[in-house]
């Protein structure tokens, strides 16, 4: 598999590490235990296009949000994951 890193260009799979579903958003500080439980544990098991976190540890160390078809491994988009999992957290 090849991933086109927005910062480094097309690179080989071995440079990247997979984390998982990029859909869950970290709940705010005051969230209930149930909300956080969902964030930590509940994942969809998608047969088709799925947004995922990948880490370019062998390159620029950017976290990327990648849309990958889990049936064909076709990658339809790669973008920086900056702020993707963020919700306003109490400071």
């Amino acid at each position, binding site marked *: *598999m*090849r991933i086109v890193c927005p910062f480094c260009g097309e690179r*080989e*799979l071995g440079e990247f*590490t997979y*984390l998982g579903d990029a859909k869950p958003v*970290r*709940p705010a*500080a005051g*969230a209930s*235990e149930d909300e*956080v*439980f969902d*964030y*930590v*544990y509940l994942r969809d098991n998608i047969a088709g296009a799925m947004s995922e*976190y990948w*880490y370019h*540890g062998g390159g620029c*160390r*950017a*976290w990327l949000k990648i849309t990958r078809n889990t049936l*064909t*491994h*076709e*990658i339809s988009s790669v973008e*920086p*994951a*900056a*702020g*993707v*999992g*963020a919700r306003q*957290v*109490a*400071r």
Partner: protein
Amino acid sequence: MITSQPNRLASGGLIDRSAPLNFRFDGKTFAGFQGDTLASALIANGVKLVGRSFKYHRPRGILTAGSEEPNALVELRTGARREPNTKATTAELYDGLEAASQNRWPSLRHDLMAVNQLFASIFVAGFYYKTFMWPAKFWEAVYEPAIRRAAGLGRAAGAADPDHYDKAWAHCDVLIAGSGPAGLAAALAAGRSGARVILCEEDFLLGGRLLADGGTIDGMPAAEWVSRTLAELATLPDVRIMNRTTLFGVYDGGTYGAIERVNDHLPSPPEHQVRQRLWRIVAKRCVVAAGAIERPIVFAGNDTPGVMMASAMRTYVARYSATPAKRIALFTNNEDGWRTVEAALGAGLQIAAVVDARPDVSAAHRALAAKAGFAVLNGFVSGVDGGKDGVKKISISLAGGARAEVETDGLAVSGGWNPAVGLTSYHRGRPKWQDDISAFVPDGAPPGMEAAGAANGAFGLGACLRQGFAAGAAAAQSAGRDGNAGAPPVADDEAFSLTPLWHVAGKGKAFVDYQHDVTAADIELAQREGFESVEHLKRYTTLGMATDQGKTSNVAGLAIMAAVSGKSIPETGTTIYRPPYVPVAIGAFAGQHRDENFHATRLTPSHHWAAEQGAVFVDTGLWKRAQWYPRAGEKDWLETVIREVKAVRGGVGFCDVSTLGKIDVHGPDAGAFLDRVYINTFSNLAVGKARYGLMLREDGMVYDDGTTSRLAEDHYFLTTTTAKAGPVMQHLEFCRQVLFPELNVQLTSVSDQWAQFSIAGPKTRDLLREIVDPAEDLSNEAFPFMGARKVSLRGGIGARLFRISFSGEMAFEISVPARYGDALVRNLMLAGKQFGVTPYGTEALGVMRIEKGHVAGPELNGTTTAADLGLGKMMSTRKDFIGRVMAGREALAARDRQVVVGIKATDSARRLRSGAHVIPKGEIPGPANDQGYITSVCFSPTLDQWIGLALVERGRDRIGEIVHAHDPLRGEDYDVELCNPVFYDPDGGRQRG
């Protein structure tokens, strides 16, 4: 020298008669020529019997002339280089080659295991499941050993492979599989268009079927066209031809796997050269011109030595000048089979008869038969007389119902051609049925891949050239290369006519899968027993599951299944195709990553010095760490470790701790960021101070710990455990980038930039004053416990000094740029001589941390919470942090959790072992009474007995209780007392002194 090759023609062929070679097969010496394969040389020497079959030990000969060979498998080479299941049909002959037949005892000609044939009725499909079900315990004791002795293929070498293997990457615009007419035409078109081309050919010669079948291209003989084409390709700037290279797999994103047999054609690789090279090729486009595989017809006795694919027979005659038989019979259902007759007659061989399943043989063929004096019979071969010495006679069922017999010593069989659909089907593409050739052709090929020529079901020479050229030009264009491809090569198309024929009913075993001994009757049985789906058929009968992956058998097998189940062949369908297309040695996948190079080795800055001291090293992940430093006269490691611990506690010692992960955290929000990733607070840490920190995972379990220091208002220096250095960096980057983008903070991994040493013991300050610039004040007032700041060393080198202690002693950790690590350690030894400085290893480090009750890897095991470790009070209630909410879950805060507690044996002479389970005194050991286990143990020189840490249910409420340690693994049972985990200096006076 042995020169007699009775079945070698006097002239012709692509062998080099000026380069004779000797080789041995089953201990007997034979001669051959450069350019032979082992199979062609055996044929030239009249050897027909080359192996015994997998299950029934039936005598087998050579069936094909290529990598689809199911029968002629040998053990090639000897000793550590012995390679089982090597196809004689692809093994290039070299001088001194040694090969042995497989799966026979005591000899190939007299194989006692052939008795299996007498029990054939129990060896039918599914026999494992049916025969060996009961009694269950007989499986391991009786059945499996017996089956393993009786059935099987070659023997592995049983010794380490002495050769080297390599892995390499290549990139191109157009990748081409195969160098037959379609492949060469594709390379011409793509190369002329300006594309970067790689062409892989598994054979050592280029040309594919042209090598044996010839023909006329652009008005010249095929051989001349091939050499002109290769000459032109050589002039193109970016066309790379790789022979002896098989494209075996297709992976995502245009990545392909190929195996290059760099030196398999030599007795052993020349010095400093590899045996094989595994290529990963990244290509924008791929043209599959891998040709087609001729398919057998299934009839009784079709596995007799001397029965051979028609195309293979003419390959041996035309390419190798080796004659498999003197009086050849042909059984065909198609026009192409007749080319073998023409080739045999051209070489001066006799034709015994042609049995053609088609009623309408052409007038030209009939005229040829009349001229050469052989009969053309319309019908089917229904039986073969013969055995280990080869075919003697064939029985024929004539179309009218009558029977005939023909004497022959070699039967050529052609059931038509199956396009090689492997590569095009590896992304779960299902090939589609094409009626006019009665074969599956590629469909649903992976993105960027196109099949051309015979691999695409176009069998005529002209069509192969046209399709190959067009595919090459189109591939170049879509890769952005639009140069002038010029004119395509031109040739005529042969007539193609075929009457589908898969199976001739008859008495005796009719083999579908030669390598796994699957017969037509097995397939019929599978259907009767309900294993009708092709995937079930495959697994129940093992059809197509041998090392040849059913290249000659799969389509015939499912055609027979279609017939008995009353379905069409396309309705029956194919199984899923999976790589590799040919077997690939595990050694090639490993490449250079074996033995000491299995993974990278990381050396600490003091490694070379430590090695000079005779340190014993331990592998810690990729690191080699000094475990202890033995001295002459010490009888074992324990004596050494005890000395090291006492030297630290009584004087001063040092230990390389550079393996800890180190991260610089910069930015105005650095403190706020650390507050969110640690359970405790760092934003309020004073500049010049260090603090112990604990991180959780988002699920509330402890992730990692370490000391973090504030070196400036906007600069923290964070350390991680050795094991989690990489993962914590990744985790923190995730937090920074994905979760908290609003924070202005940057992370830099500096693990390799700093050499770090722990200097510990009451004389630490004395030693440091010899190293550090005298202007630096190291007094307790100026540099108190948990102080951290930059200092200058004598000579002006900048260093970082941290007053932190893992050992419980008065201690500092000192960091210098990694390049000074070696100099620092040598200076510590010099300067410390007067104080009796003692280097200590990880073992003494571990002893002192257990004595001090510090948790480490065995306690930070992914199932413990901060409270379990006795660190629950560190969890801030005034801020959000990773893992906060989940750590508050009822079960994670429950009173009866297993928590860290100290243990010591009631018998002070008793050695403790980690892993022993903790059982309440008087209870029966077992899961119901299991209250935890011992995590870490050591012999404490300070307490003069073994001590340890354990995770025990409500452990800290039970201090003083005697419990039972149960160690069924080592057969040990003893009593231990639960105690305060801080065995040494519980009020911490020493480290603050």
